[in-house]
């Protein structure tokens, strides 16, 4: 039998982080300044999200498009050609029901019990529907959506590493949560450009450390469209399309495989992405001009406005 004091003394000698351990004070100072530049008025949840990297949202450019949160998590640290995405494919493959369910569960675990609030609808995460699921190499993505009566929509784009036939849980799961709405759905051959996000693949929070990036976008198409090809700089991506929704992701930035020199184009002055759409009869319309959601606002219920 060992008395408590002796037990504690023995344990103290096995401290994995003794107080006399050297601390990088430069890093401490850098972090302080970076935290202080964060907006203190932006609410955060009581339970902080793990390993969530900042996501640079590209706004829809109009007030009614409301960004709720955009978070990304722990993509593998990569350099140069981003070897984590080495087997990424331009064309999506079918994700098995089991893989889609596994990623959905992991993603919702990160999202928390609800989304929205603070003026937006508050929705139970379990009510988000799995709208799309696909596989690109060892990565599976799912798009979760919830659409209210006024077409206010929450979209969660989830990405996780889950090799084919793996029985493990998805790893390196990341997601971007976006919200907005009130617009009419596209018609005919239209493509309504939706939200976009860049997922920072860094080795630390707040942009500390080295890393790479992935980008994702989603939007709506009219009933006459069965295929969407996205051009992000020199990268071509065949989007997944189902029931009037498309989604795509790719390694790199929204403007291609390497970070752009400037944010030019991100303000709507120039198109960030270009689109080809495939119609029901197989016709391909190249470089179509996307519509933007709030160009087609729904009439308010009283018919005014």
């Amino acid at each position, binding site marked *: 039998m060992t008395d408590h004091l002796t037990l504690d003394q023995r344990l103290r000698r096995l401290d994995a982080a003794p107080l006399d351990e050297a601390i990088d004070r430069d890093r401490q100072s850098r*972090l302080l300044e970076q935290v202080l530049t964060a907006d203190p008025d932006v609410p955060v949840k009581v339970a902080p999200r793990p390993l969530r990297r900042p996501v640079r949202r590209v706004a829809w450019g109009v007030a009614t498009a409301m960004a709720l949160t955009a978070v990304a998590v722990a993509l593998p640290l990569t350099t140069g050609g981003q070897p984590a995405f080495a087997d990424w494919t331009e064309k999506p493959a079918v994700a098995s029901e089991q893989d889609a369910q596994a990623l959905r569960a992991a993603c919702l675990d990160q999202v928390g019990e609800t989304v929205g609030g603070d003026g937006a609808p508050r929705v139970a995460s379990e009510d988000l529907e799995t709208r799309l699921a696909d596989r690109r190499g060892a990565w599976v993505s799912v798009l979760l959506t919830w659409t209210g009566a006024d077409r206010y929509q929450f979209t969660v784009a989830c990405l996780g590493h889950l090799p084919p036939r793996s029985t493990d849980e998805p790893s390196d799961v990341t997601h971007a949560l976006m919200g907005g709405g009130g617009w009419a759905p596209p018609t005919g051959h239209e493509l309504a450009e939706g939200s976009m996000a860049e997922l920072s693949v860094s080795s630390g929070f707040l942009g500390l450390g080295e890393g790479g990036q992935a980008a994702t976008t989603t939007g709506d198409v009219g009933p006459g469209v069965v295929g969407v090809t996205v051009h992000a700089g020199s990268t071509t991506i065949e989007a997944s399309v189902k029931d009037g929704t498309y989604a795509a992701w790719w390694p790199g930035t929204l403007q291609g495989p390497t970070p752009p020199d400037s944010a030019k184009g991100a303000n709507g002055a120039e198109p960030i992405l270009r689109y080809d759409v495939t119609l029901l009869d197989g016709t391909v319309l190249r470089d179509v001009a996307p519509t933007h959601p709030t160009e087609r606002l729904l009439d308010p219920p009283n018919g005014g406005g």
Partner: protein
Amino acid sequence: MRPASEERFRSLYAAHYDHVLHFARRRTDPASAHDVVAETFLVAWRRLHDVPDGVGQALPWLYAVARNCLLNMTRGENRQRAVAVRLVTRSGIDRGEHADSVGERLEMADAWQRLTPSEQEVLALAVWEDLTSPQAGKVLGISAAAYRVRLARARRALERHLDHSPAPTVASAATLAPEASS
């Protein structure tokens, strides 16, 4: 002139950065520990009005946030409800020590590994974070009395494992936290 809120946060950060970093380092690898520290203080900055300013109250609040970060880091993999606590690495144990001392520490390390993460957690808060029962209870979201009960159980469990500990081996030492560079 800096706003009062910024001054308060700077004081909070200066006073507790080391403690939060050590708290995280005991529970995860060095790179992830810095992530946890960053997230913890970002939450503290954004919720500064929620950070208690009484004596000895801010640090348990920060630890609770850091613990949530750590739980969330692994939640997707195995739904943990407690954070396992690491011990010094094997190389840290046997570096320049007498064989008897090394054996004793390996025995303790072996017993520690046989504790549940919950047991490790309550012990660590008392032994390494040096918290009182009310403070540790705040970190875990339980009452001081409940914490004391858990602490007593954890100590008994560790003693039991020590009493029945097999002779330490290299294999058992290998279960200690792997060394990683920050």
